[in-house]
């Protein structure tokens, strides 16, 4: 979109990121669980060092002296699992919520008043935790590990849903709210991205970003040279002498940067007032957390592998619904986001210069229908007659336009006199958006897939079957 290009050009020239949002579009928890860490190169199930906690001044540090040793690995993951259990145990309080149930009866349901929030530096760390959760769930060793696996599974299930704030990545937080002048792929590097958004005093983004690249990576993959020069000797020492001090020091030193950067990202977004729909989206996370907790408590929680069958189609429906809803909500909440549609010409900003509330149109059956007209003074509107626009719940259609005016007819939302108060007065400044009221469609999926989408032969060829109960280790 052209606004994105313009902002990137501005950032490039100023050598500093420019705001792309003026509201916080993610919910920020009062008490997030922040986690940064490294795993052994190529082995996501073998953590080397993990730093985590809810307070930036009091992080916990776990190290694994022999990451490939199952017992040591489980001991470390056990400690992590217990701390995660303690953290999420804060989110058990519920409040009664009245909902319209089947028919017209009112149901009282209970929803957790708050939900846990996991914050990681980047996409790769979030993905790593998905895998770690999956790994823990395949193990049959310790119920604490299993439950931690279930919680990580909940985070993973929310992570891909647009608008969910159960898992935040610092890079996504910053890239949602600021625009840099570097390559979009470079925005995936937390240090570089932060250097653009908040360069140290006296430095421009180029210098700061170049310096950030020299610092240890934000994980979960460590620097190969660090592996060779620092990690290897430290692990050897830990293995031979049972002394993990050097390992802890080394790990604390390299993870410190990612830890601080992740908190800084949270701080920066917290300076913005929350967007109008942010709390509503967080409520959906809270409901999801409530259901998850109930299942964990009842022991009925199940995780399969990748979704297939009806749940796969349901997931697609949810993704699509949420993608559209999020885009719309962010634009309505935040003028800087709406500016994207103004820049492409899909939305129109202008001043109301004239109204004709008595105007009527003739229906197909020949009767007269009240269809008020509005005239807007604007700049450079170039869409054809017939274009549909919205002002909140009021739908309008473009009738004609000149270089600096647009004539619009109200077609819905305010076509009866009692609703004329929804129409803007003369001299009012308005922004007409390309989206109207939010629409929800039920997914309307059958309980099981119909025959055209189901194999004729139910059993898979024997050769393809994977051995059952294989933990993959």
């Amino acid at each position, binding site marked *: 979109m052209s606004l994105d290009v313009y902002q990137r050009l501005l950032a490039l020239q100023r050598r500093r990121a420019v705001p792309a949002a003026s509201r916080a579009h993610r919910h920020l928890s009062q008490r997030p669980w922040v986690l940064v860490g490294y795993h052994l190169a190529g082995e996501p199930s073998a953590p080397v060092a993990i730093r985590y906690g809810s307070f930036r001044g009091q992080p916990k540090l776990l190290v694994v002296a022999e990451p490939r040793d199952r017992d040591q690995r489980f001991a470390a993951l056990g400690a992590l699992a217990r701390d995660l259990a303690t953290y999420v145990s804060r989110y058990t309080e519920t409040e009664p919520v009245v909902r319209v149930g089947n028919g017209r009866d009112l149901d009282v349901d209970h929803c957790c008043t708050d939900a846990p929030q996991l914050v990681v530096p980047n996409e790769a760390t979030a993905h790593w935790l998905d895998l770690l959760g999956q790994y823990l769930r395949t193990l049959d060793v310790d119920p604490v590990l299993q439950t931690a696996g279930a919680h990580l599974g909940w985070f993973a299930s929310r992570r891909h849903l647009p608008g969910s704030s159960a898992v935040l990545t610092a890079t996504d937080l910053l890239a949602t709210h600021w625009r840099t002048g570097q390559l979009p792929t470079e925005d995936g590097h937390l240090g570089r991205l932060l250097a653009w958004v908040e360069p140290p005093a006296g430095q421009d983004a180029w210098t700061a970003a170049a310096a950030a690249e020299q610092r240890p990576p934000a994980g979960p993959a460590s620097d190969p040279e660090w592996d060779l020069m620092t990690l290897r000797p430290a692990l050897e020492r830990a293995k031979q002498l049972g002394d993990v001090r050097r390992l802890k020091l080394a790990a604390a030193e390299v993870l410190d940067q990612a830890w601080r950067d992740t908190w800084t990202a949270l701080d920066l977004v917290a300076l913005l007032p929350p967007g109008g729909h942010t709390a509503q989206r967080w409520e959906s996370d809270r409901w999801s957390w409530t259901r998850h907790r109930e299942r964990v408590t009842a022991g009925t929680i199940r995780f399969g592998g990748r979704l297939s069958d*009806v749940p796969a189609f349901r997931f*697609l429906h949810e*993704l699509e619904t949420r993608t559209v809803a999020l885009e719309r909500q962010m634009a309505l909440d935040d003028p800087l986001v709406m500016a994207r549609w103004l820049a492409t*010409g899909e939305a129109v900003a202008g001043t109301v210069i004239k109204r004709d509330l008595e105007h009527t149109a003739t229906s*197909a059956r020949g009767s007269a229908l009240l269809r008020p007209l509005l005239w807007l003074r604007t700049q450079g509107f*170039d*869409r054809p007659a017939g274009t549909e626009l919205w002002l909140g719940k009021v739908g309008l259609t473009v009738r004609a336009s000149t270089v600096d005016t647009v004539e619009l007819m109200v077609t819905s939302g305010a076509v009866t006199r009692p609703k004329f108060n929804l129409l803007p007065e003369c001299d009012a400044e308005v922004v007409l958006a390309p989206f109207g009221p939010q629409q929800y469609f039920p997914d309307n999926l059958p309980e099981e897939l119909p*025959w*055209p989408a189901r194999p004729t032969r139910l059993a898979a060829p024997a050769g393809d079957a994977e051995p059952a109960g294989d933990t993959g280790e």
Partner: protein
Amino acid sequence: MSEAARRHEAAIEQVWDRVRGTDRAVVVDSPPGAGKSTLVRELTKRLVAAGEHVPVVVQTNDQADDLVIALAAAGLRTGRLHGTEWAPPPRWPRDRVRTGTKLGELGGCDVIVGTAAKWAYVKADDRVWPLGIIDESYQMSAAALVRVGHLFDRLLLVGDPGQLAPFTVADEHSVRSLATWPLDTAAGTVLRHHPDTPVIPLPVSWRLAPHTAPVISDAFYTRPFRAGADAQDRRLDLHTLAHPALSQAAETGWALLELPAAHVPRTDPALVSVLADLTHQLVTADASTVDPSGGRPLTSADIAVGVVHRDQKAQVEAALQRLGVTGVTVDTANRLQGRQYEVVLAWHPLSGRRDASAFHLEAGRLCVLASRHRQACVVVTRAGITDQLHAYPAAEPVWLGTDPPQVDGWEANRVFLDRLAPFRV
């Protein structure tokens, strides 16, 4: 009967035999203008004659309306199942068609036509039709199919495999995390789960002319097809002096009009004004379209301008409004699927770009734009597309367990451009 007509008839009889047979599903692959609509109409007639009630699933309201008009003209008692916001198009055969938002309002109809989206919300009270027809089944996604599949005991799926595949607004990586691909085509889904399903290709395009069909067949289809018309059958006559691109296209069926190479924003105003000017010239050229059924004046309803993005559509429409041209269809490739015009002016998806993208390279997009015409197609673009194809990195993500596409977008674009070179103006 010509050789082409014989082959076409044979294919139709083959489909009919299968439909009357025991296969759970039958797939008919139809290249552009291969008589798909005629086939659906003909089979529906035969099924109704045999005493059956036939539900037909299409993908868009336009397609539903077109089909209903055709079925009603063939004398069938037809019902149009529609949503609440639907309004009948011009020339709607009000007296011969029943319409309704519920099945109950369509009693007495032998054929019921509705979009997949509408059928998905139908309350059928466990009614199962013995055979359902799905039109444009390569445009329909598995996600749409699973919402209507239970309504039919057997299925006839008809469609054009060269059109645009189903798409989603959702992030591809998230969707790929699923073990199935819910955006597979309806026909593809049936073929995957029921590999014994017979696939019958229609071998002849009646829309495309002998000189335009081979280009489309070579670039976009794995099963070759030919044109049914003879070279002398079709003619576009321009009675006033027109732009060389139009006279070239009138003469040969193709014209490739290249503006000077430039990297421009996608709403390239020069392209907008060229397309608007060409359209204007065409409607004022006193042109006539001639085919074996006779000649008649070319009207604006016979012309379409095919574009890639909605903002291009808006710009071209606005430019045409300024020139006082009305009645010409301007739309994106998505929405032109399954439609037919005498002349199409196409905005090449790669025009004016510095870097090609997977979206702009999609084979179906170019194929739709280049195969809607009966008489002539003018492809308008900035020069320099070959460089874009050359510079395009082979870096598309590869997802394990999926087959490479049968028609590769990059390759299709290259072949198409190659075949169009002789028609450069």
